[in-house]
């Protein structure tokens, strides 16, 4: 305890000195001020105090909020993905994504645009990018994706001003630019007792189409068990659905994600696909298969709930979720595209703005 205290004091003194050094030299401050603030912010609290009532504040801040999302994403997809595809498949992607997204694009942006600070939302976006791409996606693709996403995120205004989910927008642009690469390389996951070899390298890369593509082509559904536990093909982050569900529920429980959105989204996918498959027959995949396939669960818990891009009002959140569900089912069933969540969420992000103002007009007439 005592040692800890003295380390703390030394650290505090040195950071104070560093802060003084940075702030007293305009040029250093221009280049490294924001970076220093960001690092310092991870170690120490702010010195701001409440100037207007209330004079005490709750300890929840945006850092913890985003930290919660990062933890959920880490256990929701990074850990299972390491098991299924091997350490060497996952970790380099994350390093590339963070290095390019946060440490290159974000830092350059902060310096050029004279933003006050780098914020933690960039980490969340960069943690999404590899998850949305196939396991065999090349590293440069991840880098390009991260760069595009962070760039657009900053252009559109950063935390608090995002128009659409930046990670999905990046993924959309990748789909437009490299249509062939983003839909191949669905690697078969490893499903046995892990060995050191498998843990590091994964298994031989055998590729197979995702369950949704298979259904589109030959109308066969995969086993629900394999879908739930992740022993089926899909993007890197979306396969182990049980882990995603657990972490998603935890997020809702911590009130970081709003429970209304996953409930509305998943519920409406279930209902619409049930109704449509009764009406149209086999062009529409059966409801439980729809729920468990593709990126739906991942998107419903982690991407659609991204708070800034939904509506503020609670009723709007229901409408947002249901809209996403409807578009997803329609795209999956009646278009040649096998997976529709990306389009659904991006579209609803945009529609969210008129929905919000309409709700306000009705509510406060």
């Amino acid at each position, binding site marked *: 305890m005592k040692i800890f205290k003295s380390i703390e004091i030394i650290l505090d003194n040195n950071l104070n000195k560093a802060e003084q050094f940075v702030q007293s030299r305009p040029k250093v401050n221009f280049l490294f001020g924001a970076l220093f603030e960001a690092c310092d*912010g991870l*170690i120490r609290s702010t010195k*701001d105090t409440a100037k*207007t*009532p209330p*004079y*005490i504040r709750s300890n929840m801040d945006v850092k*913890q909020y985003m930290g919660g999302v990062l933890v959920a994403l880490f256990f929701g997809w990074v850990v299972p993905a390491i098991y299924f595809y091997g350490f060497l498949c996952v970790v380099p992607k994350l390093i590339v994504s963070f290095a390019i997204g946060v440490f290159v694009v974000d830092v350059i942006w902060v310096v050029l645009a004279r933003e006050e600070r780098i914020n933690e939302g960039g980490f969340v976006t960069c943690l999404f990018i590899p998850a949305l791409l196939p396991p065999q996606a090349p590293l440069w693709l991840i880098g390009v994706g991260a760069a595009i996403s962070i760039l657009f995120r900053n252009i559109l205004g950063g935390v608090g001003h995002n128009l659409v989910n930046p990670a999905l927008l990046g993924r959309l642009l990748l789909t437009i630019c490299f249509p062939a690469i983003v839909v191949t390389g669905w690697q078969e996951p490893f499903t046995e007792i892990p060995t050191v070899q498998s843990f590091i390298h994964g298994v031989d890369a055998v590729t197979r189409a995702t369950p949704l593509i298979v259904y589109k082509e030959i109308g066969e559904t995969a086993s629900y068990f394999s879908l739930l536990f992740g022993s089926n093909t899909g993007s890197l982050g979306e396969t182990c659905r049980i882990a995603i569900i657990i972490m998603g529920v935890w997020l809702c429980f911590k*009130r970081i994600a709003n429970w209304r959105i996953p409930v509305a989204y998943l519920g409406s996918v279930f209902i619409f696909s049930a109704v449509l498959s009764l009406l149209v027959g086999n062009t529409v995949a059966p409801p439980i298969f729809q729920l468990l396939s593709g990126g739906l669960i991942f998107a419903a818990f982690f991407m659609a709930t991204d*708070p800034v891009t939904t509506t503020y009002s609670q009723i709007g959140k229901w409408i947002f979720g249901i809209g996403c569900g409807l578009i997803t089912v329609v795209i999956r069933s009646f278009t040649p595209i096998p997976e529709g969540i990306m389009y659904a969420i991006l579209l609803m992000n945009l529609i969210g703005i008129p929905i919000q103002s309409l709700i306000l007009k009705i509510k406060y007439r």
Partner: protein
Amino acid sequence: MVYKKGFDLIKAYPTEFSEEVVSVRYSGQTENFSFSFPEKKVEHIIINLCPTEPWALPHWAILKGNTINFLHKLEKVRSEYFPDSPCRIVVDRCEDELINDLIRYGKKKEWLHTFSMKPVYPYDAPVLIIKNVLGLETTFGENPIDHGILLLEPQTITGIYEHYMLKRETGVRLIPISGTGLHENRILKIKPGTPVETVLKKYIRTDIKYRVFFDGLLNGTEVEDLSQTVNWSVKNIVVMEERDYKTPFPYMKTKELGSTTSLMGELRRCVYCNYCDDICPVNLEPALYWHCYSRGEKQKARHYALDKCIECGLCSYICPSKLELLQVIRECKSGS
């Protein structure tokens, strides 16, 4: 933790007062007790024995273990000055003994009603207590007496009894002082008119920076000048540590930091997290006011039921982006 509609401040900031009540000596000019009896007819009297803020005066300091004695005084005051008004006493739902005493006393007296509630902030704010106890709608900032409702502090009842009925000189008021800027939390007998420095002199910590507040931390006022005097309307004094320097590893010290005036985070833009409308006791959506304000359209904020806001301050308290919502609301209300 409960965020939904109101907030249990007592649980979040437990505050214990030592039982002994101490008098503060002061020989300068002081003010005597006076009560301005309303000219309008009083139809209902509400007495709140269930404070929802941890730094408010606990009721045991007034009841002194003798509820019956207090009720006698109340009965005399009522029959002398407000003979036709029913009295409603609000108590904490968990205090069985007190509730039993009240019910036993009120058995043969149909003017006395007991009402129990959970001590969740800000349910004892005038607008909400009137709504919960009487079911009547009032607006924030109105004097409840315009609706024939008299909200009486328990201390005022003993004050009226002693000053007007026993004709005794009454010049002291019980004021609780608490907070991390003090050595100990105390209930003090203060002669209104005493300067704040004199009141706090014996208890304040001199080794740290501190700030002094009247009437609680959520929507109270800051005492900038400590030579200001304590008057009859001051309910409590809170002294909080001011940490205007950075603290390493704040995640391990949330409790310690939480009891200072620290913002506990950086100012950001609204992230649409919905914490503010979940906690708002009157179902408003405070972020809307901030959006109007940040676009420079203060007038527009009025469209969103702004006048219903009771200025409890919970929205600013909970906001993870540390937006000054209460300040924004007050500015939008004043409209300038």
